[in-house]
C-alpha cells in the first residue's frame, strides 16, 4: 500500500494516541476514578487503527470493546471517551452507559452493547440502507474471535452475503475469549475460513502489521464500495494484557505473551518509519507532546465535568415525536428533524466532540 509520509505519520500517531489513552485509562482505574469493567487493547492498535484508516466520510464503523483505535480515527473525541469512562453527565451516554459504548450516526459510529455479536446484524441494517440509496458508503463491523461463535455472527454474515451488502467484517483474533483459548472455541485454524460458509471472500492477515491490515481491509472495503458485496478479514493479533484490568490472565503462558510482546505493532511500525526516515526523533517528540496534551485536556475536561444528574434517572426512555431524517441527507442537519440533535440535551450528538482532534502540523490535517 503506497502512502505519503503524512498518512504514515498519521497512522503512527493514532496508534500511539490509542495506546496512551488506554494507559491513562488504566491509571484512572487504578486510582479508583473509573468504576466497573475496564477493557483495553494493547497489541490491537495495528488492527483497530489500520482497519479504520481506510475508511472515508459516509462510511460507518460498528466497533466493539477493544476498538478505541477505530473510534479515535473516525472522530470520537478523547474528551468524549474520558467523560464516558468517568461516567460524567455530559458523556455521550449521559452517564447511562460506560466504556467505549459511544456512538453518533452522523459520524458513522454505532454504539456497541456489551452483548457481543449482536452489533453485527445492526451493521447489516446500516449497509442495507446505504445500498438502498446507492450511497458509496461502506460499513466496517468488527468482532472478536469469541464473538464468531455466537449465532448472531452467523445470521449477520449470512444475511450480508445473501443481500450482497456493502459491509466488511473484521475479526480481531487475539487468541482468547476472556480466559478461553481458541481451541476451546472453534476447530478451524483460520477464522477467515468461516467466510466459506457464506461464499464470501475471506482472508487472514498479520493483525500486528498495520500496513498489511490496511491493504487487506482496504481492498475489501473498495470491493464492497464497488458493489461486490461483503468480505471477512481475520486479523491475527494477541491480547497481551488481561481480559479486563481486573484479570491477571495467569492462564496465558508467559512465553506466549513474551513472544507476542516482541511483535508489538507500534514498535514494529516505529522501526519501519525510522528506517524509512519518516519518523525522526524531532517528529516523535512533537507527536508525543501533542498526544500528551490531548490526553491531559481530555482527562481535565472529564474530571471537571459534572456528575450525572440523579433527578433524570427515569428520563429519556422514549424518543420524542417528530420527523426523522435520513442520516447523511441534508435534512439530517436540520434541527426540525428529531435525529439531527441529541434530544436528551438539545445539543449535537457527543457535544464533547466539539473540540476536534488537532494533529500537529507535520502530521497533517485530516
Amino acid at each position, binding site marked *: 500500500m503506497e502512502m505519503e509520509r503524512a498518512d504514515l505519520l498519521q497512522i503512527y500517531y493514532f496508534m500511539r494516541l490509542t495506546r496512551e489513552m488506554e494507559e491513562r485509562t488504566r491509571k484512572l482505574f487504578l486510582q479508583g476514578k473509573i468504576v466497573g469493567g475496564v477493557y483495553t487493547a494493547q497489541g490491537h492498535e495495528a488492527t483497530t487503527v489500520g482497519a479504520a484508516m481506510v475508511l472515508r466520510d459516509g462510511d460507518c464503523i460498528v466497533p466493539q470493546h477493544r476498538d478505541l483505535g477505530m473510534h479515535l480515527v473516525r472522530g470520537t473525541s478523547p474528551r468524549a471517551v474520558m467523560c464516558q469512562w468517568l461516567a460524567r453527565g455530559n458523556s*455521550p*451516554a*449521559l452517564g*447511562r*452507559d460506560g466504556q467505549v*459504548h459511544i*456512538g*453518533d*450516526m452522523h459520524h458513522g459510529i*454505532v*454504539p456497541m*452493547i*456489551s*452483548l457481543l455479536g*449482536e*452489533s*453485527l*446484524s*445492526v*451493521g*447489516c*441494517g*446500516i*449497509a*442495507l*440502507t*446505504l*445500498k*438502498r440509496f446507492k450511497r458509496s458508503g461502506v460499513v466496517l463491523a468488527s468482532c472478536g474471535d469469541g464473538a464468531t461463535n455466537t*449465532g*448472531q455472527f452467523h*445470521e*449477520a454474515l*449470512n*444475511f450480508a452475503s*445473501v*443481500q450482497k451488502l456493502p459491509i466488511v467484517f473484521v475479526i480481531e483474533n487475539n487468541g482468547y475469549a476472556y480466559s478461553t483459548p481458541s481451541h476451546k472455541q472453534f476447530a478451524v485454524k483460520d477464522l477467515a475460513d468461516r467466510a466459506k460458509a457464506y461464499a464470501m471472500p475471506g482472508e487472514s492477515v498479520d493483525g500486528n502489521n498495520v500496513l498489511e491490515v490496511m491493504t487487506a481491509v482496504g481492498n475489501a472495503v473498495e470491493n464492497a464500495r464497488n458493489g461486490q458485496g461483503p468480505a471477512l478479514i481475520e486479523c491475527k493479533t494477541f491480547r497481551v494484557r488481561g481480559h479486563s484490568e481486573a484479570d491477571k490472565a495467569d492462564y496465558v503462558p508467559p512465553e506466549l505473551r513474551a513472544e507476542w510482546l516482541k511483535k508489538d505493532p507500534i514498535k514494529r511500525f516505529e522501526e519501519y518509519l525510522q528506517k524509512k526516515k519518516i519518523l525522526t526523533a524531532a517528529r516523535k517528540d512533537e507527536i508525543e507532546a501533542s498526544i500528551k496534551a490531548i490526553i491531559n485536556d481530555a482527562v481535565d475536561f472529564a474530571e471537571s465535568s459534572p456528575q450525572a444528574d440523579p433527578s433524570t434517572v427515569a428520563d*429519556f*426512555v*422514549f*424518543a*420524542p*415525536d*417528530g420527523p*426523522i*431524517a*435520513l*442520516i*447523511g*441527507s441534508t435534512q*439530517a442537519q436540520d434541527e426540525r428533524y*428529531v*435525529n439531527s440533535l*441529541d*434530544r*436528551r*440535551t438539545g445539543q449535537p*450528538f457527543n457535544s464533547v466532540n466539539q473540540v476536534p482532534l488537532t494533529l500537529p502540523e507535520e502530521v497533517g490535517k485530516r
Partner: protein
Amino acid sequence: MTAITYLDAISQAIREEMRRDEAVFLLGEDVGTYGGAFKVSAGFLEEFGPERVIDTPMSEAAIIGSAVGSALMGMRPIAEMQYIDFITCGFDQIINMASKMYWRSGMPVPMVIRGPSGGGTKGGPFHSASPEAWFFHTPGIKVVVPSTTYDAKGLLKSAIRDNNPVLFLEHKLLYRQPELRAELPDDDYTVPLGKAIVRREGEDMTVLTYGAMVYQCMQAATVLEEEDDLEVEVVDLRSLTPLDRETIMESVKHTNKVLIVHEDALTGGIGAELAAILAEELFEYLDGPITRVAAPDAPFPYAPPLEAAFLPNAEKILTAARKLAAY
C-alpha cells in the same frame, strides 16, 4: 367503500405508509414473493420492489438487528415475525439493542415489530403465543394490541410513525373474522398510541381487557345486562405501553369494581400490573376484590378440547363477573 377485514386493515396501513414515506419498508420471512404467511403483504413486492419488501433467511435475530440498524439510519423498518412466537429467537436484539438505544445514545430507533399472536386457531404450543408481558415489563418499547379493524389500521399507522420500537401484536383469530369486517374512512386517519377506549359504558363494574378477549367480554356484558340487569363498562386498552391510566382510573372510580380479562397466562400477566396499580392508587374506591380471568399457568395446548378449556371465554367471564357483582 367496501367493508374490509382486520387483516386487510393491517395490509392497508402498511401499504399506505410505504406509499407515503419511502423510509418505511418491510422485512421478514416470506413477506415478498409469497406476500407473508397470512398474506398481509400480498402484492407488495410487485408494488414496492425487493429493496422495500425483503424476503429474509430464517434468522429472527438478524431481521430485528437489521431493523435496528436501518432505523438508526433514519428508516422506519417493519420487521415481521411470521408467528410472534418466534420473537424469542430475536429477544436480545429487542431487550438490549432496540429498547435501550435512545436512552443511552440519544439516537431514536423508529421501528415496528409485528406479527400474528394469540390463540384459538389450533396453533398449539408454538403458534399461539401472547408475548406482551415480557415486553410490557421492558422499558423502551411500546406494546400495541388492536382489537378492531378500525384500530388495527389506525394504531399500526401510529406505530409506524412513532420514533421508538413498537411491538404490534395482531390477533390472528381476528384476521379474517366476518364480524370484524368494517368500512374504514378513506382519509388518512390514525389512532393514537396510549389511549384506551370504552367499548361499552356501564355503572356496575369495569372490565379491563384487550385483543380478542374484548369480544368475549362484550358478549358477557350483554348477557349480564339481559339476565342480571347489570351495566358493565368494557374498557379496551388498545395500547399496553404507554398505558392509559386516566381512562382506567376514571372508569373504576365510578364503577368501583374491576374485572380484568386477558388471554395470556395469569401469573405475571398484564392483569397483575393493572390490579397492582388499582390496589395502590384507587384503594378507597374499590367495593370488591380485583378479579382476574386469564389462561391457566400452563403452556398453550393443541387439542381442541384443551384449547377451549385453556382460553378465557364469555362463560368464564360471566361466572367471575357475577361473583364480583354479588360481592
